[in-house]
Structure formats: C-alpha cells, structure tokens
C-alpha cells in the first residue's frame, strides 16, 4: 500500500513541480502574445506603407528609387516572417525565390519581391514589372487583413523566434535570398529583430528560472549585433559580398546556436 501511495501521489507531485519545463502553458502568456500581435500589426502597417511607395516607384519606371526602397521595405516583412508564413499562399506570392520555380527566373509564375528584385538589378529595368508590383501590393494588403483577423496561436508566436533563426540558418546565410541585390544583411536585421522581440516579450515569464539560458541567448544576439554593426551603411547595410568569410562564420555559428537554444523556448513555456 505504501508503495503504491508513493508511486501515485508523491511521484506526480515531483513531476508537476520540479520538472525543468513548464507542464502547461500559463495565462501569463496572454500579455506577451497580445503585445506581439500589436508589434506585428505595426510592422504590417509599415509594410503596406513602404510597399505602396516601392511599387509606385516600380510602376513609374524609377529604377534607382525602386532599388533604394527595396531593402527597407522588406525589413518589416522579414521581422514578422513566422506569422506571415502561416499563410503559405501569400508567403509564396510575396517572398518566394526563383528556385521555387522549375524554370527559375524565366518562369512566368515567379512573383513577388524577388521577381522585382531580379528585374531591377539583373535587367536594370522595370519593364514588365507593373503587374507584378500590383499583385505584390494587393498580396501585402491581403496579408494585413488576414493577420488582423487571426487569433495568434501561442506556440507559433513563441516558436517563431526559432523559426526566424532556422530561416537564416537554412537558406539565408549563404546569401541566396537577395541574390540579385545582395541586400541580405537588411533581411538579417529584420529576422534578428523579430526573433529578439519574441524573446523579450516572454522574458519576464522565464527570467527567474532560465537566467542562464537568457544570458546565452542575449550573448549570441549581441554577437550578431556587433558583427552586423561593422557593415552598417547609413540607415542600412552594405552588400552581402562585402561580408568577410570570418564574419560570415561568426554569424553562422551565432545563428545555429540561437536556432538550437530558441528551439527550447516553447518547451520552457509549456507549449509543446
């Protein structure tokens, strides 16, 4: 009898109270998630505003102006990518790359930012881009509308910090994202800011229990900041080809470590 009592009640108490991870997500997440939605909404409003100016320039045939607006416009999108990606159709039409299409750049289906980027930098022209620009603006507005009416799934928000790092690790560190304009460092900035925002929002929930974890994560964000700062140019960054091999390795290591560490954030907050 004593044995079974021990197995039943005391063991359970142990599991529930002293586990490393929260057993179930708490309502303390309500405020960070709400704050995050407001953050995302603000970024989207900025994205719509910037995309309007960008696509106007494209349609007016102002190649130089459009080139100038390309990277800053994308910044807001990159910061909220984990949420934007919840709508895979829009993500594809806004931000897919030539590799996603069998005939690559020549594929008539190739849309969005990178299609325009290709025209602006590779062809130095806005020829044929007007319909692409119209579609891009319509898609960005559609995204804003859909996100406005979306109840944010907490695990997607918290998991989003890791997702942003995964994106960088898997397909950005190579400089293949903005392969025509080489404005990848702007995108990195957006990705890192977006990830850090999420960490900062949930920080109070884990500050006591996970001080070491946060210290490591912060240190890696610092490394990224310091490294990126070397390449600052005005409001933005120099082109990706200027990034030295050594700094690329530093960034790659920081990104991989962040991806590794942030992948545990959901678990720490009880969101499997």
């Amino acid at each position: 009898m004593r044995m079974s009592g021990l197995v039943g009640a005391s063991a359970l108490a142990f599991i529930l109270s002293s586990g490393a991870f929260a057993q179930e997500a708490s309502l303390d997440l309500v405020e960070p998630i709400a704050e995050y939605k407001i953050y995302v909404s603000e970024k989207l409003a900025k994205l719509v505003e910037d995309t309007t100016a960008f696509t106007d320039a494209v349609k007016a045939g102002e190649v130089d102006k459009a080139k100038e607006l390309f990277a800053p416009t994308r910044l807001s999108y990159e910061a909220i990518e984990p949420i934007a990606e919840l709508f895979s159709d829009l993500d594809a039409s806004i931000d897919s790359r030539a590799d996603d299409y069998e005939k690559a750049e020549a594929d008539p289906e190739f849309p969005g930012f990178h299609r325009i980027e290709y025209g602006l930098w590779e062809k130095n022209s806005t020829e044929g881009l007007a319909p692409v620009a119209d579609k891009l603006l319509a898609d960005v507005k559609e995204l804003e509308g859909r996100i406005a009416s979306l109840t944010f799934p907490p695990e997607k928000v918290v998991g989003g910090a890791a997702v942003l790092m995964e994106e960088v690790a898997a397909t950005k560190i190579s400089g293949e994202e903005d392969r025509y304009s080489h404005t990848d460092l702007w995108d990195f900035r957006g990705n890192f800011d977006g990830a850090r925002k999420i960490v900062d929002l949930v920080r109070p929930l884990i500050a006591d229990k996970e001080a070491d974890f946060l210290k490591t994560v912060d240190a890696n964000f610092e490394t990224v900041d310091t490294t990126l700062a070397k390449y600052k140019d005005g409001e933005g960054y120099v082109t990706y080809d200027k990034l030295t091999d050594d700094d690329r390795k530093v960034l790659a290591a920081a990104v991989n470590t962040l991806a590794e560490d942030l992948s545990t954030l959901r678990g720490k907050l009880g969101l499997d």
Partner: protein
Amino acid sequence: MLDPKDLQRSSYHLNRRRLLAGLGATAVGGSLTGAASAETMHHSVADAPVANAASQLDSVPHLGLHQAGVVNGRPANGMVASFDVLASNADELEALFRTLTERIAFLTVGGSVPMLDPKLPPADSGLLGPIVRPDNLTITVSLGASLFDDRPWLAPLKPRHLQRMMRFPNDALDADICHGDLSLQICANTQDTTIHALRDIIKASSRQMILKWKQEGNVPVITPGPDGRAESARNFLGFRDGSANPDSSDVAEMDRVVWVGADEGEPAWAVGGSYQAVRIIRNFVERWDRTPFGEQERIMGRTKMTGAPLDRRQGSEFDVPDYAGDPEGKATPMDAHIRLANERDEASKAHIILRRPFNYSNGVTQSGQLDQGLLFICYQANLERGFITVQQKLNGEPLEEYIKPVGGGFFYTLPGIRDASDYLGSSLIAAARGA
C-alpha cells in the same frame, strides 16, 4: 491454374540453383547463409532489409509478367537514374530496349566478365571483380512523358495518365534533377553493385541515351525483433516509413493497386506495367531535430519510438488508427501526415500506392546544412488516382515546413520481359510499328 505467386517463388529458387551451379565451389560456401535466409527474405516492400541476411548470391528473377524491383522487398541500396533518349524511330528505340534487356539479363543473373585484349579498355569496370554476382540486383525501366511527346510516331501510344511531373505548392523543383525520357531504378544489396550496373549500362548504351540526373539512397538494415517480424525502416526524420504500405506479397492486391490491367483503359501494350512516381524530397533535418518531440509526432501522426498510431500509443506500427473514433483529431490531428495521406476509409482505398523509398544523403548545402532527404519512389496502377491525389491531399500539411521536394519525375514502368526470347518494351515497339 498456376498461382503467379508460386511461379515467382519457384523461379526464385530455380534461379538461385542455376546460379550456384554456375559459380562453383567457392560460391556454394557463401550460399549457405543465403539459402538459409531465403524465407526470412520474403518480406514486404516497406520492411527494412534484414541484418546479416543479405548475400551476394541473392537473385531476383528478371523475367516475368512484370518487371522486377517493384513488389520485391527493398534491398539496402537503391538509385534512380534518368536519361534522355536519342532514338528517333521504332528501330532505334527497339535497339535501346534490346541493349537494356541484354544488360539486365547479365547483371541480375551474374557470371564471368569477358576478358578483352589488354590493349583495349576493359569490357567491364571491374568493380565487382572477374565474376559478377547478382547481389539482389533489380533494374526497373520506365518511360517519361517526354519520350512520347517529342516523337509523333510514339505519341498516340502514351499511357493515359503519363504526364510531365507538375509543380505542387511546396515544391522547389530544380530543372537539373527533374523528368527525363527514361528512368532506371537500380536496387541491390550493396552500393557497389548498383554503381556497377549503372556504369555497365551507360557504357553499353552511350550512343542511345544520355544520363540526365541520378540520385542514390539506402534503407537502414535492421535486426528483426524476437518475434521475427520485420520492422518498417526509418526515414531521415526518424520515423518509420511505409507501415501502411499494402502487402506486396498479396498478388491480388498488387494487381489492384500496382499493376495496370486490361480494364484500366490504357493502351494494350501497357498492360502489366505500372506508373512510377519519383520525388527527391529534401528534409530540413537540423530544423526537424530542433522541433519538439510532441510536435514531431503530431505532424507525422505516429509515435516516434515504435511507429504506433497516436490513438494507441502502446500498440505497434501495424495497428490501424481509428479515425472514425477521433473525428475531431484529438488523438491524431486532422492534418497529420499519415491521416491526410490515407484516411483509412473505403474511399481512400482507391488511392493506395506502393511506396518504395530510399533515404539519401548528398553533402552540404550552400548554407552549411546537411543535404539529406528521401528518394521517394512509388508505384500505382493509376497515377491520377494514386500519387497525384495523395499529394494533393497532403498539400499544405504541417510537415511542409520541414521538407522541400526538389526533383523527380513521373514515368511509366514497362511490362515485364516475358521469357528469354522477349525483350523489354517489345509490346510498345510492336504497337508503334502497327500504328
């Protein structure tokens, strides 16, 4: 009437005996383990190859109603190679088919390599030494839509559902590893044997077809459990793959699911063939490894450790999930991979396919991540009802975040080589001449 299953089994042993007789004393020693394992070798396509059971003398008959390499269990190594065909008329195509038939007959049965004048290049790469042993080799030949489309004299004979592989929403197809006029699926116990076969065929057919792309893969070899039941092999996501495959030893089921019969509305020459869908599906393994265990299970719809369905975690991978009893997806999410692919109801039976995948591991991407994934191969009697429908059901699944199809193609697997006087594709050539 003779049961084709018995026929297959008896020819299996017949072949083995013939081979043993031919190879002489040293081979006989080696054959004892092979013969002893013959019964345990009889397993389903999805089963992992049995550890320590494979022998260089394992042989799969290359003659029969259907080609080998479809309903046979997967050996440890597999490869798909795709070619552009040069033939511009029926005679040239026949010549290619006859070349392939001849090489398949030699490579899958084995024998001595002919020795040529040392001043000449050797007839054989020599990879396998002076005597080629079959090593469970199968070579399965299939035709792509472009072979028909580009040749007016062949176009009317194109199988009904054969088409250029379309782009599905999550695909990022690389034109360099897509499509082709002709595919070879080459499978064997060891990688040396598949590579040897490929080099042999390239050498023999160099004037007739040109290699376009290839992808190699393998299946982990597993020791069966104490109950002797083979387990399904795991893919590079760490999950068992193929638990729900149809029973490939069930001849009637294979006739329904895999082989094109006379009643499918296909051209008469195509009866006895099958549709082959090949997909090179990259797995983002680093990201997957950083995904919570529970989410991994919910995405796949199986327990990771045993492969048991989520609604009976203590069960085995072969237990059938009860989706009717879980209409809201509380146990197995509605968008779990296995649930979307096969709802396990009457209607979904029409869409069953025979999967025969291999894991691949190629190298490192530009971003410094592992280029690994699944060389997905499946066979079905109706491509639309089979792979295309299943893939459409999977479009948008949560697993898409972790996988990216980058290559592959749709092909039509030719009917078998009926006997030693027949050659691969003879019915198609006859039809082309008659047309």
